[in-house]
């Protein structure tokens, strides 16, 4: 096991990693920008090193500074948290060349999964379901009809050279196909100078469901069930739960087995998440995150595993301590991301936090680096804490969530706590009936 690790991150996740390390008896080094000199992870770490000025590119993304911080402190390994350098293959490579262990997967795995096209190709090869569609460009209507028949309607016609919604047309049936293809082709030609289009299955109301996996880089991998992260605003998740209200045990086992087999074949090391869209009981691969996820605590709640400790263990060379059959799911967990933002406009609200009071009691976990008197710097993202609530059932979990939100005090800045309190009054949320568009529609509807 490592004697000392460096935490190349800030905020709640730096604290999360610090806690895991401390519980493993590992010394911690915090790095921080000048703006974060008073941050909780800096106060609690065994050692700390200021690595640069406030802008992330000069501090938390500053690879030479972080490597130098390892050198002067003698840290043997780096935990990158999420965001910042956590999926940066170059960073992993440089650490390797300096004989510092990157706590995460291999450089190759990061690189493969970091490239969208390569990731999709790899996923397909490894048996992970992807969005069905034409193989490459479609040039004539006969081919288009054949594809449509194969994959089923509705379909979406997209420009090969495209992006940003232009050159995209939906066909709900074969009757609409010809017009849709020709329109898409001419729009594509006009917009990108290239009229080539391809066809994919069109998902109308998908959920975002992701599978948590854990591998040891030695050919063993297991899955830890799914998380439903469909409640998103501008592609930012705000509420995650495990299990998904939409999945049953059989579906979970099936997709989980597929994904963990794929990861075993890749010799994937550490934790990772395969993100899917889910509609009509089918999974469609979106991307893989080769790192710890913000929402990992809901998986910890229903499995009892400490994902960060497991990450560190396999990084130190240990084989996976669990077989798939060792993993028992129990209860239900929900995470709410508490952001320092106006709950209606979502305008960030940095500044001094006069008073903080965290909810407590049975089934309540708070991951937050806030403290009374802390000043939230304006340079980084607005996530200031996560409230994770566990219950025997989803219903108990929701009641506990309502109770703990009512105890959560952050005085001095605006937070998204009131949004979650409002969501708990929505029948769709109570019933688990939501898709990836639900929150945006809700916000538009309640804006008045």
């Amino acid at each position, binding site marked *: 096991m490592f004697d000392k690790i460096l935490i190349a991150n800030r905020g709640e996740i730096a604290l999360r990693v610090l806690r895991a390390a401390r519980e493993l008896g590992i010394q911690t080094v915090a790095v921080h920008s000048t703006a974060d000199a008073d941050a909780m992870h800096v*106060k609690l770490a065994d050692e700390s090193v200021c690595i640069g000025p406030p802008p992330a590119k000069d501090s938390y993304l500053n690879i030479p500074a972080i490597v130098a911080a390892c050198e002067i402190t003698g840290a043997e390994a780096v935990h990158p948290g999420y965001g910042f350098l956590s999926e940066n293959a170059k960073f992993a490579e440089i650490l390797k060349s300096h004989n510092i262990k990157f706590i995460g997967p291999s450089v190759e795995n990061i690189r493969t999964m970091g490239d969208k096209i390569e990731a999709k190709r790899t996923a397909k090869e490894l048996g992970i379901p992807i969005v069905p569609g034409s193989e490459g460009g479609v040039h004539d209507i006969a081919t288009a009809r054949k594809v449509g028949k194969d994959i089923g309607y509705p379909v979406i016609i997209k420009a090969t050279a495209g992006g940003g919604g232009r050159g995209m047309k939906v066909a709900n049936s074969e009757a609409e196909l010809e017009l849709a293809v020709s329109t898409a082709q001419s729009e594509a030609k006009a917009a990108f100078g290239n009229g080539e289009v391809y066809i994919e299955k069109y998902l109308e109301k998908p959920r975002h469901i992701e599978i948590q996996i854990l591998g040891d880089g030695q050919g063993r991998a297991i899955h830890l069930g799914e998380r439903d992260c469909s409640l998103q605003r501008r592609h930012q998740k705000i509420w995650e739960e495990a299990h998904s209200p939409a999945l049953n045990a059989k579906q979970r086992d099936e997709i989980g087995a597929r994904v963990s087999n794929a990861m075993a074949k890749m010799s994937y090391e550490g934790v990772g998440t395969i993100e899917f869209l889910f509609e009509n009981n089918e999974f469609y691969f979106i991307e893989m995150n080769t790192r710890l996820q913000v929402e990992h605590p809901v998986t910890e709640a229903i499995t009892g595993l400490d994902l960060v400790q497991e990450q560190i263990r396999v990084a130190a060379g240990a084989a996976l301590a669990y077989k798939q059959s060792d993993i028992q799911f129990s209860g239900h967990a929900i995470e709410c991301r508490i952001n320092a933002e106006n709950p209606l406009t979502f305008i960030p609200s940095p500044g001094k936090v006069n008073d903080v009071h965290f909810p407590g009691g049975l089934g309540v976990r708070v991951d937050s680096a806030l403290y009374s008197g802390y000043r939230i710097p304006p340079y980084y993202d607005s996530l200031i804490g996560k409230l994770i609530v566990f219950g025997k059932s989803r219903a108990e979990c929701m009641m506990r969530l309502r109770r703990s939100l009512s105890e959560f005090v952050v005085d001095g800045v605006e937070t998204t706590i009131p949004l979650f309190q409002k969501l708990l009054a929505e029948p769709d949320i109570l019933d688990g009936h939501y898709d990836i568009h639900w929150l945006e529609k809700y916000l538009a509807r309640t804006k008045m």
Partner: protein
Amino acid sequence: MPVKKKSAASEPKESAELSLIRKLAAILDETGLTEIELDHKGARVRVSKSVQMASMVHSAPTIQHSAPALVVAGSQVATEEISGTPLKSPMVGTAYLSPSPELPAFAALGSMVKEGQTVLIIEAMKTMNQIAAPKSGKLVKVNIKNAQPVEYGEVLMVIQ
């Protein structure tokens, strides 16, 4: 009660109690007490004086009660007030005051340095980075020892 330090302007007509209060007030001042209560021949007198509260709002909570965060380099400690232009570390690394152990320092304490002249080296990622004097003047302070780890923004030297 041995009261000295009278207030000059006390009128002779003043009642015994008021006079006593004045005396007690003087004692407060003299002794730094904040309150005196006195039962004296059936008369009870209490005087008190608030302390100038320096308002001790707990800005930074005492989170560190168990494991104090040891900053790697002793920058905070070393910054005594010596006026001049500080040379702050532009990077994290290990600072060297001379090109090699056998050779003399790039710049000795008390010597004159020129703007742009290399005054130390910081090693980071196996690279030796030459650090130049920010201005010409006298090197009046060297906060670091040879081969000491330094962090970003730390004041390494002061030039006057």
